[in-house]
């Protein structure tokens, strides 16, 4: 009879829904809830200061503040995702266009569960899978701090994704696949600094959001955590302890210096990392930076090896000539640059990334390294795109990836042509 299949479907949906709800409730057990904690207090200056520190750790400004505009957290900044652009919401306390009217519970649900205020779901461009590691008390402190920001009237329609990605409901499935609720749980077998670093990396600092490869659905590829990912026209390099492409040749001090000042003895930060350092890690304590470094140095990498392309290879010969004539005046003939000024290409793992996007971007368009109070010089690399054609860029890139004992896959003229094309389309 006709009613039986419909009834069966309805029953199935109800059962699945109940099971899903039960599952979700089971998952949420043990999660501290904001209502169980003291409300964000506009007069508790210790809480506000703690919130400010945490907001810096979590680098909220990196998305929610627009560079060049003096209106912190007012939103409107485009956030690139593999599926299109979103606009970061206004998280100033403005009641109509910001989060001023939100309750603490709603704020916590957004940050740690990816829930919009009226039941919808956030896209993981908001890194709630990472922020979930934070405690309710910490998120409340952030709320208390944000409450002190000057309210800005700025109405932002976040969802600029094209169909079908603009259907937020699809996030339900995504969350089932990629979102594990729950605060950070320390590993009792590891020292305190390691655990602090793990908390920061996996939690507020959300390093994997850029540095972990993604699946086709845009979730973290957990098995290759922190092994590098292409984002915003750059390649965020491997930051595991991989000897060739990662931090294997860096000491803890090297990592701390890089995060704190933007420069260390072998390299300099530019692009998105320059912004991260300016807004976030240059303000972190040495202890926290050391903790992050300690944790990263304990992450195994791929440890696969590539053969060095021989010096007699035509691309290497041409690349060596170009390098001698045009690159050595800063980076030195032996590739060792000048400490804290010109990156040591011979010792720089990011140069050897499997994806040469960052390398090609810097060669083609130039780059200004970051200025911090500790390292104000901010030397800049000139653009070579006008001077070297695709074949020559490929040759010199191949050379610097394989000279001086390094090894990395060759760069092809085709890759350079593609890089030029996609860079020309970028506005940043």
């Amino acid at each position: 009879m006709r009613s039986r299949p419909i009834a069966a479907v309805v029953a199935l949906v109800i059962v699945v829904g109940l099971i899903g709800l039960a599952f979700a409730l089971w998952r949420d057990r043990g999660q501290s809830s904001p209502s169980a904690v003291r409300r964000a207090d506009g007069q508790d200056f210790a809480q506000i200061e703690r919130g400010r520190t945490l907001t810096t750790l979590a680098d909220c400004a990196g998305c929610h503040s627009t560079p060049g505009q003096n209106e912190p957290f007012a939103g409107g900044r485009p956030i690139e995702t593999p599926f299109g652009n979103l606009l970061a919401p206004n998280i100033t306390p403005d009641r109509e266009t910001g989060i001023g009217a939100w309750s603490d519970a709603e704020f916590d649900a957004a940050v740690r569960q990816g829930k919009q205020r009226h039941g919808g779901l956030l896209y993981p461009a908001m890194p709630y899978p990472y922020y979930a590691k934070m405690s309710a008390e910490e998120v409340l402190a952030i709320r208390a701090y944000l409450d002190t920001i000057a309210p800005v009237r700025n109405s932002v329609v976040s969802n600029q994704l094209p169909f079908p990605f603009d259907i937020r409901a699809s996030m339900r499935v995504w969350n089932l696949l990629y979102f594990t609720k729950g605060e950070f749980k320390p590993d009792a077998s590891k020292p305190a600094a390691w655990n602090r670093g793990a908390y920061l990396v996996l939690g507020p600092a959300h390093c994997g959001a850029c540095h972990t490869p993604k699946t086709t659905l845009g979730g973290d590829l957990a098995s290759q955590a922190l092994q590098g990912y292409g984002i915003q026209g750059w390649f965020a390099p491997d930051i595991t302890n991989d000897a060739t492409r990662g931090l294997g040749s860096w000491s803890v001090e090297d990592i701390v210096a890089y995060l704190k000042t933007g420069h260390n003895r072998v390299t300099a930060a530019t692009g998105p990392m320059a912004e991260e350092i300016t807004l976030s890690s240059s303000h972190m304590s040495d202890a926290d930076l050391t903790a992050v470094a300690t944790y990263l140095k304990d992450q195994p990498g791929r440890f696969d090896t590539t053969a060095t392309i021989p010096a007699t290879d035509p691309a290497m010969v041409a690349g060596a000539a170009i390098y001698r004539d045009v690159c050595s005046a800063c980076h030195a003939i032996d590739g060792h640059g000048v400490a804290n000024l010109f990156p040591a290409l011979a010792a720089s793992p990011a140069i050897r990334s499997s994806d040469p996007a960052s390398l090609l971007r810097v060669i083609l368009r130039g780059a200004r390294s970051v200025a911090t109070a500790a390292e104000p010089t901010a030397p800049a690399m000139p653009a070579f795109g006008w001077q070297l054609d695709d074949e020559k860029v490929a040759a010199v890139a191949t050379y610097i990836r394989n000279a001086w004992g390094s090894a990395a896959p060759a760069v092809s003229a085709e890759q350079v042509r593609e890089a030029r094309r996609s860079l020309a389309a970028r506005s940043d």
Partner: protein
Amino acid sequence: MARRLPRKDVVIVGLGWTGSILANELTDEGLDVIAIERGPWRDAATQFPPNYSQDELRYRIRHELFLRPDQTTFTFRNKMSQTALPIRSWGAFMPPNGVGGGGVHWNAETWRFLPSDFVLKTHLTERYGASFLPADMTIQDFGVTYDDIEPYYDRFEYLCGTSGTAGNLKGQIQEGGNPFEGPRSRPYPNPAQTQPFSHTLFAKAARELGYKPFPQPSGNMSQPYTNPLGVRLGPCTYCGFCEWFGCGNYSKASPQTTILPVLVRKSNFTARDNCEVTRINTDKSGKRATGVTFVDTSGEEWEQPADLVILSAFTIFNVQLLLLSGIGKPYDPVANTGVIGRNFTHQTISDAVGFFDKAKFNFNPFIASGSIGMCIDEFNGDNFDHAAHGFVGGGYMGQVQTNGRPIETTPVPEGTPRWGAAWKTAVRDNYLSAVKPGTGVHGSFYSYRDVYMDLDPTYKDRLGRPLARMTIDFHDNELKQNAFLTDRFAEIIKAMGAHTVDKQYRKGPYDITQYQTTHVCGGAIMGSDPNTSAINRYLQSWDVPNLFVMGASGFPQNAGYNPTGTLAALAFWSADAIRNQYLKNPGPLVHA
């Protein structure tokens, strides 16, 4: 009608060396500072990267980094009896324009004046008698001594990472340095640069002749350096594209490579580029500056009010602006009254070109830096007895060849045809084996009654303002000095093993088309007497106490050294006086 901007504590006219030094000092004091720069922003990343900065045509020949005469120029004549005509294209000196000023394209030769240079009038009168000096020579004492300024020389040298070998440490003469220099409190921050072949050979020949050669003090880094502000410089790579060019790899001391990265980060500092100050404004009494008026590239006029005005626009623009603003009494050479424009000076330069056997000598002249060189100072200042010679003054000399750039530096022996097969052969055969220092003899230029600046009666700039006029010629004193020095210099070049030495004496009349350094000095000189100086020993205007005038415009005469080290030291000295005395009690710092 100029639109008025919000008031600032300090307005700085011109963001070159002294403007940057003053901006950094006064922002450290907590003041709100704005710098207004006529030219554009400049730095390696945006203007002279190391992949196209090495372009002799563009920068050396077509003058891309310098002021366009069409924006501002000067008129020139040798004698008061002549009509001054415009300098339509630069020749004798190359005025800077842009953030960093001359500090972008200088050679970075970083010298100190001799102790006697600061008290020249007193010293020479004491030693030789007043009648030994020409009647129309108007040299004066600075009003400060070397000892006053020594700590500030030190500050500038450490800011810049100057590479050198000390010759006199606290009175102890040091082997390998300049035995004639004034005592310094500590060694140079960086060791001297490595010298290429011809420069080393010059030193050897000089030593054999009994002189004491030493490396030229160089603002090109001999090694990586981090200055006291935390700014880092890289090592000089001897590219041979130094003076006239911007440095592409952060190894030449300039405001960009030593101060600006720190300065721009300060919330109490802003700069406007491509804005030309047209006037320093004063109140009705004329004794107080109220700020400046400037014009931007769209023709808008703006007024920037400020409590303190620092005029650091480069010598000749300082003088021009003071004249156009009606500050200080203009100099009248006939009546011998007034101060603005008096004691205008330049430098007395000559060369000796040596030609060597190409089978035995390969100098690779293209391997050089801006401040490379081995020099001797035996004939500078009053380092030798002038009684028998009939002139005063002198200069350092040395193989200071900075380049082998082929348009500029393909010397051929005198008498070689200027074109044709013989010319071509001579160029080819001599390029690698000739020594052409450029400014091999770098002599003083003392001041005279009839060498001065004022406003031109006829010619105007693009804004309709009168051009400033230069009346300048060599006097016998300088020509005699130069002949003597050139002969001594040529002897050393010969002793290096040259088969031919062509002496290129400096001859009068002063020629506006021949480049002879950009060391124009004077016109707003410092001193102890307001009747014969424009500014006091702290570089404060005698007439307008809230106006300070930086730069070599303050030199009563020019010594036998490049002026930058001294004018930068004086800027630090003045900044100290402003911070520790003036700000606590604004008003005249010296009561004459």
